């Protein structure tokens, strides 16, 4: 209990300071009321209880009317822009997209918006400020955005990683599993023990899909490869990630992957003289010997498209899921240790994904129990991938249930 209180205090103290809010008393009040709102993030992180006080940082930044009346675009972020991972990547793309439409677009953002009732208030504020294109970058904003969207039919809303749409609410996401597959190809070529290890965060379809795709990629190079999985139950908990990675190494895994957000897994592999990957951003510097490649997400192409749609009046609702083909996913910083043959195979796959001649989820694919999920040459529909709840053959252990 005391440890819990501690961490809340720490969390909120830092939130207040990160945001650079001058009125320090907010930080104190927030300590009491805000318990842990911003600790969860990303799609599927559990919704947090609603709070009654505004977050200290919940002020629209950089939004003022201008004479040329550019398109006003606002972003709601779940974490601080300096988190080095999820929110950082979105904010980088925001800046790049704004630069691409210099003068025509004025963007603003609010960071540390909890996945709770507070989000609705922040998003309504954005509408009141005259923003006509609004992005929400975490799963937990789904219901608040749906509500605000129905009250403001003339404003376009964009929700990352959600599954509900309306006339003026569109969803967007990236096919992170394509990056996982490409990493799997490298892992399959590099493993000697034929055992791979994955440190999983939370068992939701996105993560299960990544573990499966990683395994399929490895099996394309080496059919006997097995994958062991250890779940840590968090998106970001470096000490726990370290211990989980160590456990996988102890059990004979010699190439590690993770769907968590820190570089801890890579660093653990570096210490042990084994291999691992970077996830979400290029992590080469954290384990120069162990690093094989980094699977990264680039939101810029999508933000440019969405802004272009709004500027040209061609915006319409849909569910958008972009991957390698659209420049949203890539495997970068491939190590010199990876054989040339494997590198050219990666290029081939990327090219195939781009021109549509290659499909990752194409039968025959069997699940863990040996049951055929996809018949030979049958391609998986997005619906199957979006709700995936099984391990493919070669992944060991049972999927934690109840999520």
């Amino acid at each position: 209990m005391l440890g819990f209180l501690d961490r809340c205090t720490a969390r909120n103290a830092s939130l207040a300071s990160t945001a650079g809010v001058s009125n320090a008393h907010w930080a104190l009040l927030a300590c009491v009321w805000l318990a842990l709102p911003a600790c969860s993030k990303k799609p599927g992180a559990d919704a947090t209880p609603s709070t009654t006080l505004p977050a200290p940082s919940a002020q629209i930044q950089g939004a003022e009317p201008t004479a040329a009346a550019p398109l006003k675009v606002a972003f709601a972020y779940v974490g601080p822009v300096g988190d080095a991972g999820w929110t950082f990547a979105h904010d980088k793309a925001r800046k790049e997209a704004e630069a691409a439409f210099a003068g025509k677009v004025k963007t603003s953002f609010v960071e540390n918006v909890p996945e709770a009732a507070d989000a609705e208030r922040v998003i309504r504020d954005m509408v009141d400020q005259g923003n006509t294109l609004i992005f929400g970058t975490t799963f937990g904003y789904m219901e608040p955005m749906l509500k605000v969207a129905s009250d403001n039919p003339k404003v376009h809303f964009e929700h990352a990683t959600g599954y509900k749409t309306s006339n003026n609410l569109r969803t967007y996401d990236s096919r992170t599993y394509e990056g996982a597959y490409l990493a799997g190809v490298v892992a399959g070529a590099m493993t000697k023990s034929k055992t791979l290890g994955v440190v999983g965060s939370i068992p939701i379809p996105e993560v299960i899909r990544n573990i499966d795709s990683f395994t399929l990629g490895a099996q394309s190079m080496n059919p006997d490869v097995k994958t062991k999985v250890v779940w840590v139950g968090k998106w970001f908990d470096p000490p726990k990630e370290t211990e989980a990675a160590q456990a996988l190494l102890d059990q004979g895994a010699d190439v590690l992957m993770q769907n968590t957000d820190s570089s801890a897994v890579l660093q653990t592999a570096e210490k042990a003289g084994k291999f691992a990957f970077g996830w979400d951003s290029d992590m080469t510097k954290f384990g120069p010997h162990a690093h094989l490649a980094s699977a990264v997400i680039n939101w810029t192409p999508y933000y440019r498209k969405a802004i272009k749609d709004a500027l040209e009046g061609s915006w319409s609702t849909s569910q958008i899921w972009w991957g390698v083909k659209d420049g949203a996913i890539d495997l970068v910083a491939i190590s010199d240790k990876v054989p040339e043959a494997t590198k050219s195979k990666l290029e081939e796959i990327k090219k195939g994904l781009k021109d549509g001649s290659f499909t990752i989820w194409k039968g025959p694919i069997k699940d863990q129990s040996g049951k055929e999920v996809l018949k030979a040459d049958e391609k998986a529909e997005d619906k199957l991938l979006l709700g995936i709840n099984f391990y493919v053959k070669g992944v060991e252990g049972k999927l934690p249930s109840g999520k």
Partner: protein
Amino acid sequence: MSELSLLLGSSVDSGTPLLLAALGLIINERSGVINLGAEGLMLIAAITGFATAVATKNDSFALLAGAGAAALFAALFGLLVIWLNANQYATGLALSLFGSGFSAFVGIGYTQESLAAAPHHGFWMHHYLVYVAVLLTLGLSWFLFRSKAGLVLRAVGESPESAQALGYPVRLIRLAAVISGGALVGLAGAFVSVVSTPLWVEGMIAGKGWIALALTTFATWRPGRALLGAYLFGGVTMLQLHLQGRGVNLPVELLTALPYLATIFVLVLISRNPRWIAAHMPTSLGKPFYPGA
């Protein structure tokens, strides 16, 4: 190497910060001062050590800096509870809360930093501090039960009045114990952020300070038993991850709670026998001492 020996090796790694912190707290408590601020001290040491490692690229220097920072705050705590006779429990809790907030504040600029991990090989597959911790355990055992200075320290903890009557400077001895204990707790905190997981994340000690406090009781204030307890807790932590890797279907949430369940279990077990625990507990633990009275 077999998986079992690797599991044991990882358990020792995982238990080392607990052991170092527990040794420090044993020194504190043997002198009659209980420091509930261990978690906060470890966090302060973790960020100090990490920042030093980023600046100097030198592990040993970083570990010392962490120990030094924690010793400094422990000294402050010592002045408050030994000279001003502030309530030890309340002051310790305040130190713990302060330490977590303060470390988070200082650490804001360091969340993006990371140290490149140094590969370990062969017999020295563990960091040298893991071996040092074992030597420290032996050394502390010898000090407490075989040396005159240790006898005086225990006397101060058992009966400060008698120790004073014999002419020992009770308050200074307690301060020395609090500072050296704090330094060991700090070494444990710096070990976490510099060696185990070379990163800074706020709150990254994640309850290890509290487990170390529980361990001192579990070990009945004996260094050797603290070593066993620390490795046992490290073992439970690693075992649950190993079981997952082996595909044993247990709920992750329950497995994650295991070390804490074990802590409670041990506390319940030893408090069932009040005579046993009374025989080892420093009699003046947590009580203020007024030299003039």
